[in-house]
C-alpha cells in the first residue's frame, strides 16, 4: 500500500503552499505590490483549471474513462455558483428589481423560475455546486456504463452531452441568461468581490480545494479500490472475470470526478466574474484532456501541472503573438502526444530516474 503523500505529491503540495502564501503577500500593498494584484485572480483561475484537470485525470488516467464532456460538469458547478452570486445582487441590479436578475427583467419575466429558488442561500448553492454535476454524471454514467458503452463511443457521447447542454443554455427560455450568461456579480457571502481581500480569499480557497482534490484523488487511487480501477483501465474483461462489477466502479469514479469538476467551476466563476454557455463548448472539454495529456496521464500532480502550464502559455502567447497562439497550442498537442506519451512529468521523472540508480520513480509511475 502506497503512502498517501508520495514524493511527487509532497513536492507539489509544498510548492502550492509556498505559492499560496507568497503571492498574496507579494501583491499586497504592504509589500509595495512587488507583483501586480491581478496575478492573484489569474493564478487563482489557473488553480481552478488544475483542479478540473485532476478531476479528469482521476477518471481517464486511472479508469480509462475519457470524458470529452467534463467542461459540462465544470460549467454546471459554475452556474450553480453564478446563480447564488446573481441572487446576492438583490435590488442592486440596474432595474432595481429586488428579486429578478436584470436579464429576466428586460425580457420581462414575471417571477423567478422554480429552479432559481433557494439559490439566495449559500449553503444551498454550495450543495448544488456538487449535487448537480454529481447527479448528471451519475445518471449519465449509470446508463452508459451499464450498457457497456466504452472507449471512443463513450467519449463521443460525452461530447454530445456537453454540446446539447451548450445549445440548451444558449436558449434564453432556459432562464440562465442565454449567451450573455450570468455576470455583473457584486459580492459573495457579503464580501465585495472586487476587494483585494476577497480575491485573496478566493485564491486561497482555490489552492485549498486543489490540494484537497489531489489528496482525495490520491487516496482513492492508492486504496485497494485504486488497483481495481487500474485493472479496469488495463484489462476490463479480466476485472469482470475476477468478479468486479466494472460499471459500479466506473460510476463511482465518474461521479466523484464530476463533483470535483463542479467545485472547480464554482471557484472559477467568482474569480473571472462571468459564466456563459461557451464553457460547455466541446472545444473547451477537449482542451482539458490536453492539459492532462501534457502533464502526464495518470499522475494527478502532472495533470494539475499541465493545466497550469497551458493556461500560462495561453496568457503569455495571446499577449505576445496573438496570431501564433493557435499554432502554438496545436503544435503542443501534436508534440506531446508524439514525443511525450507520459507527459511532461513523466519525462521529467524519467530524467531523474536515470540520474538515480533506484527505480522508485518509475515504480510509482507504474503504480499510480
Amino acid at each position, binding site marked *: 500500500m502506497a503512502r498517501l503523500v508520495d514524493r511527487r505529491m509532497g513536492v507539489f503540495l509544498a510548492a502550492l503552499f509556498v505559492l499560496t502564501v507568497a503571492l498574496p503577500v507579494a501583491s499586497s500593498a504592504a509589500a509595495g505590490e512587488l507583483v501586480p494584484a491581478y496575478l492573484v485572480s489569474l493564478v487563482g483561475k489557473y488553480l481552478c483549471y488544475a483542479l478540473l484537470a485532476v478531476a479528469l485525470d482521476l477518471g481517464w488516467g486511472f479508469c480509462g474513462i475519457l470524458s470529452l464532456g467534463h467542461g459540462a460538469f465544470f460549467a454546471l458547478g459554475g452556474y450553480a455558483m453564478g446563480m447564488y452570486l446573481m441572487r446576492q445582487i438583490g435590488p442592486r441590479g440596474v432595474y432595481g428589481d429586488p428579486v429578478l436578475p436584470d436579464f429576466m427583467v428586460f425580457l420581462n419575466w414575471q417571477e423567478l423560475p422554480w429552479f432559481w429558488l433557494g439559490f439566495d442561500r449559500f449553503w444551498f448553492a454550495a450543495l448544488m455546486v456538487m449535487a448537480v454535476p454529481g447527479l448528471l454524471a451519475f445518471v449519465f454514467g449509470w446508463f452508459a456504463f451499464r450498457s457497456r458503452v466504452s472507449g471512443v463511443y463513450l467519449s463521443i457521447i460525452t461530447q*454530445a*452531452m456537453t454540446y446539447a447542454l451548450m445549445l440548451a443554455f444558449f436558449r434564453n427560455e432556459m432562464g440562465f441568461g442565454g449567451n450573455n450568461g450570468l455576470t455583473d456579480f457584486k459580492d459573495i457571502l457579503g464580501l465585495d468581490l472586487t476587494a483585494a481581500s476577497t480575491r485573496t480569499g478566493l485564491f486561497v480557497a482555490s489552492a485549498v480545494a486543489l490540494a484537497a482534490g489531489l489528496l482525495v484523488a490520491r487516496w482513492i487511487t492508492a486504496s485497494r479500490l485504486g488497483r481495481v480501477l487500474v485493472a479496469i483501465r488495463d484489462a476490463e474483461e479480466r476485472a469482470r472475470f475476477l468478479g468486479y462489477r466494472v460499471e459500479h466502479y466506473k460510476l463511482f469514479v465518474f461521479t466523484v470526478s464530476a463533483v470535483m469538476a463542479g467545485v472547480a467551476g464554482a471557484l472559477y466563476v467568482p474569480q473571472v466574474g462571468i459564466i456563459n454557455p461557451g464553457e460547455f463548448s466541446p472545444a473547451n472539454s477537449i482542451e482539458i484532456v490536453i492539459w492532462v495529456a501534457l502533464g502526464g496521464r495518470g499522475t494527478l500532480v502532472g495533470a494539475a501541472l499541465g493545466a497550469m502550464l497551458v493556461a500560462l502559455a495561453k496568457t503569455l502567447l495571446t499577449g505576445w503573438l496573438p496570431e501564433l497562439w493557435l499554432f502554438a497550442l496545436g503544435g503542443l498537442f501534436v508534440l506531446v502526444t508524439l514525443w511525450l506519451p507520459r507527459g511532461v512529468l513523466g519525462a521529467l521523472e524519467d530524467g531523474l530516474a536515470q540520474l538515480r540508480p533506484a527505480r522508485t520513480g518509475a515504480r510509482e509511475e507504474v503504480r499510480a
Partner: protein
Amino acid sequence: MKIVLALPLRPFPAALLTALVLMLPALMLPSAGRAAGFEELVARLPEGSYSDRAEVIEAIARTGDPRAAEVLGALLEGSLHVRKADGRVVIIEKTDAGTVAFDALTGEALGAVAGRSTEKIKVNNRLRGMLRSAIGALSLMSPDRETRLMAAQSVFASGDPANIEALDAALSAESDREVATALAEARAVAILNTDAPVEEKRAAVAILRARGDAAAQAALAPHASDPAIGNEVTAALAEIERVRQMWGVAQNVWYGLSLGSVLMLAAIGLAITFGVMGVINMAHGELVMLGAYTTFAVQEAIRGAAPWLFDWSLLIAAPLAVLVAGGVGIAIERGIVRHLYGRPLETLLATWGVSLILQQAVRTIFGPNNREVGNPSWMSGSLEIGQMTVTWSRLWILIFALCVFAALLLVLRRSFFGLQMRAVTQNRPMAAEMGIDTGRIDALTFGLGAGIAGLAGVALSQIDNVSPNLGQSYIVDSFMVVVFGGAGNLWGAFAGAFGLGIVNKFLEPWTGAVLGKILVLVFIILFIQKRPRGLFALRGRAVEA
C-alpha cells in the same frame, strides 16, 4: 378613355392618379405629342424623391412608347445614369474596353465615360416592383415566349387593374397554352382588384383556386372579406391550404433528405478513417474546410483568367479538392497518426492539434473573413414540383452525395485497393504476411477519407460560409452520424445521416431549430445505450477502441 373612367372607382395610389391626370393632355394629342411627353418624362426621371420617380415611371408606361420598355429596363438594371455635366439621361454599358454611354432616347453612342462623370438613377424595391409590372405590361406581346411568360408573371405579381386591357389584348393573340394560363391568372388577379361584376370575379376566383399556390393564396386573401364573393374566396383559400398541407409533408421529407445528404458528405470520410481504421480524426472538419477553400481559389483563378469557365468551376475544383485534402490527409497520417495506431485517444488529441493549426493557417493565408464562392448558373435558383420548392443547389448536392457514396462502395467492394484495405482492417498481421504493404494501405485509406472530406467541402461551399470556422461547425455532427450509424460501416453512415436529417427536419417545425437539435443529440445518447456500437455494428476487431 376606359382608363380614366375606371380611375376613381379603383383603390389606387394617389400618386398614380395625379400622374394620370397629369398625363391627360398627352393622351389627347396624337403620337407626336406622346413622344414629346415621353422624352420630357425620361428627362424628369433623375429628379425628385422616389415617389416623384414612381409617378414618372407610371406615366412613361402609359405612353406606350416603343422605347419605354428599354428605358425602364435599363432603369431596373441600374444602367440608366444621368450625366453630371449636362443632366442628359444615358444608358451605361460595361464593355471590356470600359464603360460606354448611349443616349437613352436616341440611342446615339456617346463614347466612353469616366467612373464618376455619370450618376446612377437609383430605384428601390417599390420602384423595382412597379418597373417589372410596367415592363411586363409593355412586353406582353413580345415575340419571345419566355419574355411573354415572365411578363405575365410580373403582371400577376403587380395585380394592377390598369393592365387589364393589355392582358385582354395579349390573351386574344396568345397561342401558347402555358403563357395563356399565366395571362388568364394575371387577369384574374387584376379583375379582383376592380369592381367587375360578381360572375366575372367568381370566374377569377376559380382560376386562382385552380392555380392553388402561395401566390394565388396571397392574391385571394385580401378579398376574403368581400361581401359579394367572400364565401368563394374562403372556400378557395381553404382548398389551397389543404393541398399545401399535403405538399408540406413532402417538402419536409425533401428537406430531411437534403440535410441528410449534407451530413452524409461531411461524415462519410470520417466513417472511413474512424470506422474502418479506428482513427479519430478531429481534423476532419478542417479537411472539409480545405476543400471549400480550394473551390474558392479555383473560382478566383477563373474569375481572373477565364470567366466563361465559371459554370465548370465546381467540376474543376472537385478533383483538386480531393488532391489537396487527400494530400494533407496523407501527410497527417504519415507524420502523426502512423505513430499512434492502437492509441485512438492519443490520435484524437494529436489530430485536434492539427485542426487548430490548419484553422489558423487558413486564417493567416486567406484572412478571417468569409470568402465568396458563387453558385454556377446550373446550381442557383429552384424548381417547383407541384407546391414544393426544390432548390437546384441542394438537389445537386444530394445527387453528388449519392454518387460519392456509390463510388466509395465500389472502391471498397470491388477494387483491389479496397480488398487490401479490408484485409488490413480485418487482420493486420495476416495481411502483412501476405505481403501487403500495410503502411501504404493505411496512408491511402486515410488519404481517401480526407479526399472525400475535400469533396464535401466543395459541396458545402455552395450552401454555407467559407470561413476558417467552417470545419468546426460540422465536426460534432459528423461524429454523431458515424457513431449513430455504427462505425466501420458505410451503410451505417448512410442510414445515420439520412435518419438524423429527416428526424431533425420533422422535429424543427414543432420544437424550433434549437430544441430540435438538442432532442436529436439526446436521442443519440439514449440510442447508444441500446446499441453501444451503433445502428450497423461491425463485428470483429476493426473498431475496438
